[in-house]
C-alpha cells in the first residue's frame, strides 16, 4: 500500500515537474514513462533478491546490464520528451 502511495506521489510530482519545464505530455508519453518506472521497479529488487539468495555474481552482472539499459532508455525518453515542449501563450 505504501509503495502504491509513493508511486502516486512520484507520478504527481513528475507531472508538476514536466509542467514547470513546459514539456507537453500525452497518454503515449505517460505510458512510456510508466513502463520505464515499472522496469526500474523490477531492476532494483532483482539486484537485492540476487544478493539475498547469495548470488552476488548474478546481482553484479544483472545490475550492470540492467543499469546500462535503463540509463540508455532514460536518456532516449528525456531527449524525446524535450523535443516537444509546450509553446508559451
Amino acid at each position: 500500500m505504501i509503495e502504491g502511495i509513493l508511486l502516486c506521489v512520484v507520478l504527481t510530482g513528475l507531472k508538476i515537474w514536466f509542467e514547470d519545464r513546459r514539456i507537453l505530455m500525452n497518454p503515449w508519453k505517460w505510458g512510456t514513462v510508466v513502463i520505464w518506472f515499472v522496469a526500474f521497479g523490477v531492476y532494483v529488487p532483482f539486484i537485492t533478491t540476487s544478493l539475498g539468495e547469495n548470488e552476488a555474481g548474478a546481482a553484479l552482472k544483472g545490475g550492470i546490464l540492467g543499469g546500462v539499459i535503463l540509463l540508455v532508455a532514460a536518456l532516449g525518453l528525456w531527449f524525446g520528451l524535450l523535443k516537444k515542449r509546450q509553446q508559451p501563450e
Partner: protein
Amino acid sequence: MTDKKDKMDVNRRNFLKISGAAGAVLGAAGLGVAGYRSGKDPQSYLGWQSAEGADQYFDRKSVEVDEPTYQIVGETSRPDIGKGWSGRRRKFAMQWKKETGFEGLDPDLQQYYTDHPEAFELDRSFIDEIRPTRAADNKIYGHQFRIAEAWSNAMGAIKPPRITEPPEIADFPRIAGSRNRNSGGTLPEPAKMKHPAKTSKLIKKIALELGSSFAGICKVNPDWIYKDLGQNRGFTSTDVPKHWEYAVVIGIPMSWDPMYANPNYGTSGDAYGRVSIVAERLAAFIKNLGYAARPHSPMGGYDLMVPPFAIDAGLGEQGRHGVVILPEVGCNVRPAVITTNLPVIPDKPIDFGVQDFCKTCKICAEVCPSGAIPFGDKVEVRGYRKYQLNQAKCSNFWQSNLGNNGCRLCIAVCPYTRKSNWMHKTARDLSIADPTGLMDKALLTMQKWMYSGPESKEYFMPSMGGSNASYRPPPWWLKAEDFIEP
C-alpha cells in the same frame, strides 16, 4: 473561451472525484482480499507449511496432458538391475584381482567387457585407482567436510526395516491384539471408501500431513518394475504382484544451500532419509485402512525405477540429466513410491516445456565433470526414447569426490532448480507462457552468463587434477574449519 475552460475544469474535477472514490473502493476491496488471503496463507501454518500445500503450489491443471512427455518407439521391456551398471560393478568388485586379471572374471563378465571395453576400463580404474586415491586425499583434505559428513550420516540414521517377506504377505495389513497394528494377526476388513476421487484427494493430503512436499498418483506401469527384482526384498517370483495397481508418488527437496554447495558439501541423505520415513508412514496409513501397500524408498529399498512413476503421476518431466524436473523446485527433489490396491484415480501427466528446453540448454552436460550426460539427442532404451546417461562414468566421479558421497552438480546447475522467489517464479511462468521459445533463449543466455560456476575439472579431488571446488560456497554451518580444530 472562459466558459469552455470552466467546463473543462469542472469535468476534470469530476473525473478526479470519481477516480478518487473508485480508488478508495478498490483499495478497501484490495485490503479485504489481502486480509482473507493472509488468514488462509499456507505459510502461516508455521512448521506445517508443506502439509497445507505451500510446497506443491503450482497449478498443474494448466499444463496437464493426456500422455506423458516420454515416447514409446519400440517394443518395451522391464529393466534388469542385475545386468545394469550397479549389478555389474558389484560382481566385478567381488571378482577382480590384479594377479588373475581379466581371465579371473566369470564368463558373463568377460563377454560383457569384450563387447564394452570402455566399461571394463571404467570399472577397473575405479577399483585400482580411484578408490585408493580418494582414501589418500581424504586423509589430507577431508577435514573441511567433517561436519557435512556428520550431517549427512545423521539424516540417514533412521532406516526403515528391510522387507524380507514376499509382497503377498508383507504388503498386506495385519492387526494383532497388541499396540503394533502392522504385524501378525488377522487381516482387517478394508474400509469402504466412498469414491476413488475423494480417496485420491485424501491420500495426497495425508502424504503431505505425513511430511511429504509433493504427492501424485498414477497407475503402475510394469515397464518400470525391475525384471529380476534385484534388491530381493522377499520376492519368490519375478511377476509384478497383482495388487500393485496404483502408485502414490511422494517427493521431498534436498536442503537448498548445501545442495548448491555440491558436489562435496551437499548430500542426497537429507531428502533420502526424510522421504523414506514418509514412505513408511504412508504405507502404514494405507494398511490401517485395510489395503495393501509397499514402500519403495532410498533407505528402505526399491523394486522399481522411481523417476518414471513421478512423470506418470504428473509431478514433473524428465530432464536431459535423467532427473525429474518439477515446476516448483526443478530437479531438487528426491522421490519415493508406495504401490497399493487402494482405489484411487490417477493424476494426469504434465508438459511445461522441459523437453524443448533441454534440447538446447545442455548446461548439465557442459558442467558434468565425468562427461556422463549426453550432448546428443535421445536414444531408444528398452523401447522408450530418452537421454541415456553413462552411469559408470557418473559413478566413477561421484564416488571419487571428497566430502559426502555423490555429485548432484547436474541438479544444482539446472536452470529449473532455483529457489522459490518472485524472480525465478516469473522466469518459469514466462517460459511456460511463451510458445515461440524466445523467452527460453533469453533466459538461457542470462542463466549461463549470470549463474556460472567453476570449470568442470576443478570439481575433482587434487590428486585427479582438481581443487575440491563446489558450485557455490557452503553455508556457514557446514564449514568445519570454523568449528573443529584441524
